[in-house]
């Protein structure tokens, strides 16, 4: 497709115990783009992100990041290479302060030396995190917790960010703020692969999208291409979602 492929997933099968969650999935992410994964619950979106992060390993197939096979690596090694995940449900460290949550984001060796620099960037994206540095993380609002989760991910100094269900349960105005931050993050050259339930919003924000269906890639393309396919429109998006 392009010689700018940063992450290349080739024909992977992934199991949860005996249940096969992904079937022969292939996917390419280009450096610097914003790519969306769309699909119903249990279509395998989170499984795919967890496999890239090394929490799960494919039974078959390979995952390459910048040409290096990462499919057997441990999560901490993958973070060191520059892939960070902002997990579903935020999963901030509830009893730690906001600042400590951010600092722990810079745990991996490469990120530590850039801690102050990245902290400044995070505060530029989310000034509210600076104001609340000493607050215990669990006392933040849902939107602020999501900002903290993204900020914590940025502290790892990533080249590729995997973001899982960022807008779940948040008010539209907060979601706008978060997507604005993602666009800024993308402008800094960080690739974003994100999973969303909100299809309308996804098609507005992403450059390209993959549609997963019961663990298989059903369709992929630029968001404009996907919108033009009548069949897709009806099946996945309803009729009016592509109109901005």
């Amino acid at each position, binding site marked *: 497709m392009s010689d700018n492929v940063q992450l290349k997933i080739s024909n992977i099968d992934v199991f949860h115990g005996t249940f096969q969650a992904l079937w022969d999935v292939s996917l390419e992410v280009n450096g610097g783009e914003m790519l969306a994964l769309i699909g119903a619950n249990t279509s395998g979106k989170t499984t795919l992100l967890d496999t890239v992060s090394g*929490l799960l390993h494919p039974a078959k197939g390979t995952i390459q990041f910048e040409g290096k096979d990462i499919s057997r690596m441990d999560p901490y090694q993958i973070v060191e290479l520059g892939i960070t995940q902002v997990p579903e449900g935020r999963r901030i*460290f*509830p009893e730690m302060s906001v600042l400590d949550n951010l600092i722990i984001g810079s*745990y991996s060796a490469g990120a530590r030396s850039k801690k102050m620099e990245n902290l400044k960037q995070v505060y530029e994206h989310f000034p509210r995190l600076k104001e609340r540095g000493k607050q215990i993380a669990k006392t933040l609002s849902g939107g602020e917790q999501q900002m903290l989760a993204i900020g*914590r991910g940025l502290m*790892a100094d990533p080249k590729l960010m995997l973001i899982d269900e960022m807008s779940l349960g948040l008010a539209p105005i907060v979601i706008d703020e978060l997507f604005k931050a993602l666009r800024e993050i993308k402008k800094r050259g960080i690739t974003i692969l994100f999973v969303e339930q909100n299809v309308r919003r996804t098609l507005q924000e992403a450059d390209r999208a993959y549609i997963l269906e019961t663990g298989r890639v059903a369709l992929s393309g630029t968001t404009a291409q996907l919108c033009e396919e009548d069949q897709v429109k009806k099946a996945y998006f309803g009729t009016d979602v592509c109109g901005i």
Partner: protein
Amino acid sequence: MGSGDIITPLVMGLLLGGLYALIALGLSMVFGVMRLINLAHGDLVALGSYGAYALMTVVGIDPIVGLVISVPAMFLLGLAIQKYLMGRAFAISSEAPLIIAFGISLVIQNANQIAWTPLSRALNTPYSHMSFTIGARQFPLSYLLDFAAGVVVMLALRYFLTSTYLGRAITAASQDKKAAQLMGINTNRVYGYAFAIAMASAAIAGVFLGMTFPFTPTSGVSFLTIAFGTVIIGGLGSMLGTFIGGMILGVFQTLGGYFLGPAFQMLIVYVIVLVILAVRPQGLFGR
């Protein structure tokens, strides 16, 4: 029935509480980070007592000075136990490490039995039988040392957990293992350090316990009971909670002895523990 004033047992209980917190600390840390009830913890404390006894009687090193040797030794032993025993057991099932811990407990008890006979031993030093006075009242110096050791270890550990990368990683892994992994934390390594720190604190606890009370190869069982009681009262995950839990346990033990006689002092402790389990199972300071 006790006689005299109530201040003496109260102060002794509070001082003893510092030691109890020190005993409980390792149990609390291993449970918080690894979700493992370390049944061997009491015996690791007893190993600390016997280690100091060996250094004192065989080599002639003062027990407190001997910590310079025993703390690093127990730390390294902890790393090894996690790497070669616990780590492998965790890969099998979540029950396997519990059985390994029970096995370690038996090995330590029997090894101490063989090496030192079942007779009771004590760490007798020139200063362990001294006393100090507050006003008109006399207290054993060893109790003050117990308390000081508890405070120093607590503060040091608190600083480590809140101000260093490794310490924060241990805290993070205890709050959310998956999220910790996604932050680039090697959780196996963190488990190793948590277990090693627990063993190092057990070495310190063993020394001060041994200077305060006599011990036998099976003393680990009662040390484990004290650790459980402290953690149940104070609640998991809070350093301050553990410390106050230790003091409450210490005070109830000495007051129980004061009002009902020495035979009943642990009974009072068990009753308090049961009441807390029924009324506030997360402990007084638990989340």
